[in-house]
């Protein structure tokens, strides 16, 4: 099995080189036979990588511990679901997962050449194949997941207990679906530069890919946050860890790109900017992979045993130099329209949204690399952690949310004074009233939180207003029932309203972030059996320590009766789990969630066989709104992604490129 797996990777590497060569020659000689041969080779690459992946999965299910990777990340007592997800628990498997997705994406793009010889798509396939060569080269010669022992151990060393969580099933997978998805718009942008087809064909061809990548990057980040919240036991969801940052940077850049392409589609402007955004989004995905494998930063995500950082760094430099070199060599073809009707228009609000998003990406990047810059230039190590990011990113986030609120109120092309007055008056008055009420409720304290909530309210109101106005306008014209009008309006304009649904999701996430960051309460205390702790309106009675045998270990939990306003509401059971493959215990937190707040309890340690326990209690207000917002964001993304009539920007005819 391991021989076939290894051979598949080697063959895939060979086929990807072959495909790249024949595609390139075929394109330059306009030879359809060669291009079709390259297409076949691209399919072979996908088939072989799928085969090797299936074999590795089979190795995990079968307990093939003679494979070093399987031995390192699995064990006999590991639950089945985690045996499957152990595939991407380590460095080599995660690289194979990346390559698996990339090979499948490449085959899907190559499939487009079935009916028509299309130079642009052929070149995009070549770019994707070159990326395949890099990853397959690493898998074949540097990080072979099928490396074996010359004996078969009876059991594996097991999976890191922190990775035994449903969040870890989906977090890496969704993140990689997003990361790798960025490769496709990047390949098409490079193809556009090579072929000098710098109009919006490549944007139209890859819009869905960009949204696809964005949706999965969003999901990956969100699921990572949920995992941190329920698994790491420190009561937070985002620690501004360098690797978290590296998945956030491409998300920010891709968000900017998804907005700025609308300007190119509508006005044939910002060509250089859009190409640059795609190049840097792709580089940012490589940067994330470099960080996890370089050992440059301490992180919960690091693969410390990896020598791959150097190769990723070299590849990043190569991509940077070639892409930017190509872009500057085509600068004459990237000249675009240079006309805006007004300073105040939807188009200009998109420019400012790009400013904040790219500014945010730059800030996160600066924060991530600043410790290295300081050490290199000053010889002094510094840390850049949560307090810095919170202070820098909070105004940027609020700026983005404010623009989300302003944008629907402004007309395309130009907003007249009348338009301005009519559209802004009601939201501004209501927001001012809201600010007064919330500031009063906060007893005149926390001005920043009051401003933040008001901005969220303003953006929420104007976005919902768009739906309501559109619904009644349509209902008036068509005579349909308002609800039917709403559904049909959304379905016929999925790109637009999908975007607005995403905005609502982001606003709710921001609402949750402000609440949980500003108003959280924390208490660490030691309770003897029968003693109560008080935090906020909660009283928690410690009833003792109990034990629960699980499949691959033992869970010790504190039995806690939780009262709110003197009324029993639930029993909480925060755990310390002793896994059979680990010397130290791991926390499983207890969370009692309501729309208002989460009561978050961690069992830290105990004394005298459980007669007393050290517990951490946190009240995290509004956290659940982040998860609700995340769900809405995903629904909005999928709505915008859904194919068919209504997913286009406008009725402009799609232009099939052929030459």
């Amino acid at each position, binding site marked *: 099995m391991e021989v076939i797996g290894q051979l598949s990777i080697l063959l895939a590497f060979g086929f990807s080189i072959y495909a790249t060569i024949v595609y390139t020659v075929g394109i330059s000689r306009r030879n359809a036979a060669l291009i079709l041969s390259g297409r076949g080779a691209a399919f072979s690459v996908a088939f072989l990588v799928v085969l090797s992946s299936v074999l590795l999965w089979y190795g995990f299910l079968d307990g093939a511990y003679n494979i070093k990777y399987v031995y390192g990340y699995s064990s006999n007592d590991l639950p089945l679901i985690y045996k499957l997800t152990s595939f991407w628990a380590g460095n080599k498997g995660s690289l194979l997962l990346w390559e698996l997705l990339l090979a499948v994406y490449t085959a899907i793009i190559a499939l487009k050449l079935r009916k028509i010889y299309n130079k642009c798509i052929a070149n995009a396939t070549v770019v994707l194949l070159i990326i395949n060569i890099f990853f397959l080269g690493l898998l074949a010669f540097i990080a072979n997941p099928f490396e074996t022992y010359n004996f078969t151990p009876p059991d594996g060393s097991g999976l890191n207990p922190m990775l035994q969580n449903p969040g870890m099933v989906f977090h890496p997978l969704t993140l990689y679906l997003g990361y790798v998805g960025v490769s496709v718009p990047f390949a098409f942008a490079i193809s556009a530069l090579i072929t000098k087809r710098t109009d919006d064909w490549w944007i139209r061809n890859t819009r869905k890919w960009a949204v696809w990548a964005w949706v999965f990057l969003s999901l990956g980040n969100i699921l990572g946050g949920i995992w941190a919240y329920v698994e790491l036991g420190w009561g937070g969801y985002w*620690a501004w860890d360098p690797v978290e940052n590296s998945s956030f940077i491409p998300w920010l850049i891709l968000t900017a790109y998804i907005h700025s392409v609308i300007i190119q589609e509508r006005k044939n402007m910002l060509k250089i900017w859009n190409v640059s955004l795609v190049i840097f989004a792709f580089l940012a995905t490589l940067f994330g992979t470099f960080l996890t494998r370089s050992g440059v930063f301490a992180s*919960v995500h690091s693969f410390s045993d990896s020598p791959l950082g150097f190769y990723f760094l070299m590849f990043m430099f190569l991509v940077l130099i070639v892409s930017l070199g190509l872009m500057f060599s085509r600068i004459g073809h990237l000249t675009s329209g240079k006309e*805006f009707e007004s300073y105040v228009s939807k188009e200009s609000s998109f*420019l400012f949204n790009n400013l904040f998003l790219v500014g945010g990406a730059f*800030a996160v990047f600066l924060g991530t690399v600043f410790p290295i810059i*300081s050490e290199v230039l000053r010889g002094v190590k*510094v840390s850049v952690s*949560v307090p810095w990011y919170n202070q*820098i990113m909070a105004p940027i986030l609020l700026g983005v949310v404010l623009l989300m609120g302003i944008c629907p109120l402004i007309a395309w092309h130009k907003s*007249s004074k009348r338009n301005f007055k009519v559209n802004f008056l009601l939201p501004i008055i209501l927001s001012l009233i809201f600010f007064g009420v919330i500031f009063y409720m906060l007893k005149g304290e926390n001005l920043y939180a009051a401003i933040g909530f008001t901005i969220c309210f303003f953006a929420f109101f104007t976005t919902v207003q768009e739906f309501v106005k559109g619904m009644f306008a349509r209902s008036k014209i068509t005579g349909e029932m308002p609800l039917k009008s709403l559904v049909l309006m959304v379905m016929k304009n999925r790109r637009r309203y999908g975007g607005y649904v995403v905005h609502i999701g982001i606003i709710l996430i921001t609402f949750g972030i402000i609440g949980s960051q500003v108003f959280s309460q924390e208490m660490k205390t030691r309770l003897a059996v029968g003693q109560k702790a008080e935090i906020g309106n909660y009283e928690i009675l410690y009833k003792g320590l109990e034990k629960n045998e699980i499949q691959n270990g033992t869970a010790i939990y504190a039995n806690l009766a939780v009262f709110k306003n003197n009324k029993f509401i639930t029993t909480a059971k925060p755990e310390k789990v002793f896994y059979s493959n680990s010397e130290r215990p791991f926390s499983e937190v207890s969370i009692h969630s309501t729309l208002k707040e989460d009561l978050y309890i961690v069992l830290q340690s105990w004394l005298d066989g459980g007669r007393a326990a050290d517990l951490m209690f946190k009240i995290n207000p509004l956290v659940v709104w982040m998860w609700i917002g995340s769900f809405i964001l995903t629904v909005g993304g999928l709505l915008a992604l859904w194919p068919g009539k209504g997913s286009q920007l406008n009725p402009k005819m799609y232009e099939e490129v052929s030459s």
Partner: protein
Amino acid sequence: MNVVRKSSLIILTVLFLLSLFYSVSYAERLDMALFKKIEANLMCTDGCGMYLKTCENATAQKMRKDIISMLTKGMSENEIYGRMISVYGEEVMAAPPVSSKFNIIAWAGPFVAIIIGFIVIYLCLDRWIFNSRKKGAGADINEKEIEQYEDYLNEEIKKHY
């Protein structure tokens, strides 16, 4: 002899109770809000990469004890940061301290970049609007007509978008 022993025992007990009372009263006097603020501004120093507030390892526990000890000695927030930096270096601060001019780059950099971006956008918009007006200079159309057309245009856009 027994009297001496008994007296010693009583004195020791009283001293113990006094010290207990003293420490309890100090603990009560300890400004927990300040402690939490300081904790949230420092990093754990054992290379785990976590900031102190979220770290539970032995190094983090020791650092917390050190902070409490310094607070009970009556040291101010800045004095505690200064002491921590003198022991562990600037790395102990969870955000680059602005005492170093170089670190101001980290604090000001993002906002300077955004301001520069804002100016660039403004200049570009200025140029693009000038181009647009120059192109449309011959058109004889008043504000009212523009608004009518704009409403019409927006309705059309809404229908299709």
